[in-house]
């Protein structure tokens, strides 16, 4: 496993970090949070222009990256800045599924170029984190059912919808304007928007993809989600460190009080654990036991994420309780990351099952 980034990835990281530092400050981000759409089309276009979206795809797919470490680098930076634009769902999850389908070269190009938005509608009201729990049905390529908490559904030009086709699960491409498609949108606690999507005899184009293909894309999403949480944890610990060094109480910087100093040290120790976990996630993606090696980091980052978010808020005190303070948003990103693609317990169980196998 290589611990030093390749020159290309180092450049990508530097560029993206500099861009977000300059263009994605707290004030700008809070405006975006308050906006109707829940994300900024300008930022989206600029991310595409910077090649951030292209880095998520292999050269065959029209990109210039697409490996586990490319994904990790991108999402660590997005997480560091608390970016709410739907890069994970629209570009990575949606885009890589389209790319896997084949024959969609043009659409994938538009995704990479930032011109096309996608949403992936797989989870359902009672499926929680189970990937194989699909009640939506398809017959003659007409879809009927309800999909839950579909990220970016309102902005999507196309939805990728999973449905039971006979006994198997298949994926379909549904146009935003399709008949019988209803999208009830709402904002999310940690930023961005999602929707409850209902399909009533809605026409969909079969993509020739099955649950196995979805699981493959889901692995990439797990790397991305872990890396994003890592980036957010880096910001949370950095904010806390700065606060402990500047904030005074009883006439001393509170970071000079040993209890807080030692708790800060524990956060830094766990942060290194999380960093290693993301390296493992990215490094094992092509391993035959990839699922086990992805459940481990997701579980670990779920545990560490809660610790970091709660300790960062606690050590800040009141100010971290206010919505407009940077940490408030970052902490929400960290904790809510545990509610995507399987939470701490879900992946603990999966790890136990897979490591026993």
């Amino acid at each position, binding site marked *: 496993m290589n611990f030093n980034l390749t020159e290309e990835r180092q450049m990508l990281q530097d560029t993206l970090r500099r861009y977000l530092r300059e263009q994605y400050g707290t004030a700008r981000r809070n405006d975006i949070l308050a906006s109707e759409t829940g994300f900024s089309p300008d930022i989206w276009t600029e991310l595409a222009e910077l090649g951030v979206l292209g880095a998520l795809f292999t050269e065959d797919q029209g990109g210039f990256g697409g490996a586990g470490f490319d994904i990790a680098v991108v999402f660590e930076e997005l997480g560091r800045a608390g970016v709410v634009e739907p890069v994970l769902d629209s570009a990575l999850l949606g885009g890589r599924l389209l790319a896997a389908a084949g024959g969609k070269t043009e659409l994938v190009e538009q995704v990479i170029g930032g011109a096309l938005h996608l949403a992936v509608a797989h989870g359902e009201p009672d499926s929680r984190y189970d990937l194989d729990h699909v009640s939506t049905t398809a017959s003659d390529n007409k879809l009927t059912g309800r999909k839950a908490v579909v990220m970016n559904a309102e902005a999507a030009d196309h939805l990728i919808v999973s449905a039971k086709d006979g006994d198997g699960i298949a994926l379909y491409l549904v146009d935003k304007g399709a008949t019988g498609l209803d999208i009830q949108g709402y904002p999310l606690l940690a930023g961005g928007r999602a929707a409850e999507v209902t399909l009533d005899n809605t026409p969909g184009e079969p993509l020739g993809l099955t649950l196995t293909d979805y699981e493959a894309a889901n692995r990439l999403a797990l790397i991305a989600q872990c890396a994003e949480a890592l980036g957010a944890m880096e910001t949370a610990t950095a904010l806390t460190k700065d606060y402990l060094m500047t904030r005074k109480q009883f006439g001393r910087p509170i970071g000079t009080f040993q209890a807080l100093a030692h708790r800060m040290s524990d956060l830094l120790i766990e942060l290194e654990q999380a960093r290693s976990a993301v390296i493992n996630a990215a490094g094992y993606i092509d391993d035959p036991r990839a699922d086990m090696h992805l459940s481990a980091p997701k579980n670990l980052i779920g545990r560490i994420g809660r610790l970091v978010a709660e300790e960062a808020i606690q050590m800040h005190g009141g100010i971290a309780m206010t919505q407009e303070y940077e940490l408030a948003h970052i902490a929400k990103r960290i904790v*809510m990351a545990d509610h995507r693609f399987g939470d701490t*317990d879900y992946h603990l169980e999966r790890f136990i099952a897979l490591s026993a196998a």
Partner: protein
Amino acid sequence: EAADANAPRIVPFGLSMLGPVLQKFGSKEQQDHWLPRILDGTDWWCQGYSEPGAGSDLASLKTKAVRDGDHYIVNGQKTWTTLGQFANMIFCLVRTDPDAKQQEGISFLLIDMDTPGVEVRPIILLDGCHEVNEVWFTDVRVPVENLVGEENKGWTYAKYLLTHERTGLGGVGFSQAGLKTVKRIAKAANHNGKPLIENPHFAARVAQVEIDLHAMATTNLRIISQAAAGEAPGLEASMLKVKGSIIRQEINDLARRAVGPYAMPFASEAVEGANDRIPDPLDAGPVAGQYFNNRKLSIFGGSNEIQRGIIAKVTMSGGGQ
């Protein structure tokens, strides 16, 4: 889960906080005037303790009150004033002797919030709720008969009040209600085709906090029976505040986990009626919002670090720093 949503009716400021102070330190006139109004709800009290930059270090407060004939002129700013937007009265700690060192020279004042110069500015908490406020005082004239006890002795009354607040903050009732909700959600939620409550890992989390709560409920009864026997809850109150906040926060965490992906939608008011606005088939309410909102339990009213310092100080000489 109204019991855990800090619904206005259960805000303890008037009844369980100011009440005891007036009974112990207030003048006959003050008791006759204010206590009935607390009980019948004529007055809604809020608390003016914390100040910007003072954090949990109440003794460093800056809001000053200068005697001018039969009034005090109050200038300064309070913050984290819970539900101050609804209150008509505020009890404040103010500095009446600028030369006295930290914890001396502080007085305990009752201020009518309709007095000219009092301004309430909202603070939106991280879960999007307007629950706390800044309260600004600009040349606010307060009649001297609103001074509780002696001038410059306010710190004594404040400490007495804080111990009572802390006992309240054990929050056994909130935790029991919260735990009930968690179980209801976990019975309804699916996990791998079974109710989540039957999942051993989730069940273990629930059981451990339930066991902790069993024990703390007994600790709570012990402290109450001590208080009934006349002992002022001091050390035990701090212990209860710390453990109580940890247990409530753990329960909020369990509720958040139980709901799964439906914890993500944003409910703009955690206080009430949010369920309608959330597309959650489990009808769990804004559990993630409450999880974040209740981080305050270990921060406000004397942070858990302050409480641990008190416990250490009392049990070991000088163990606080």
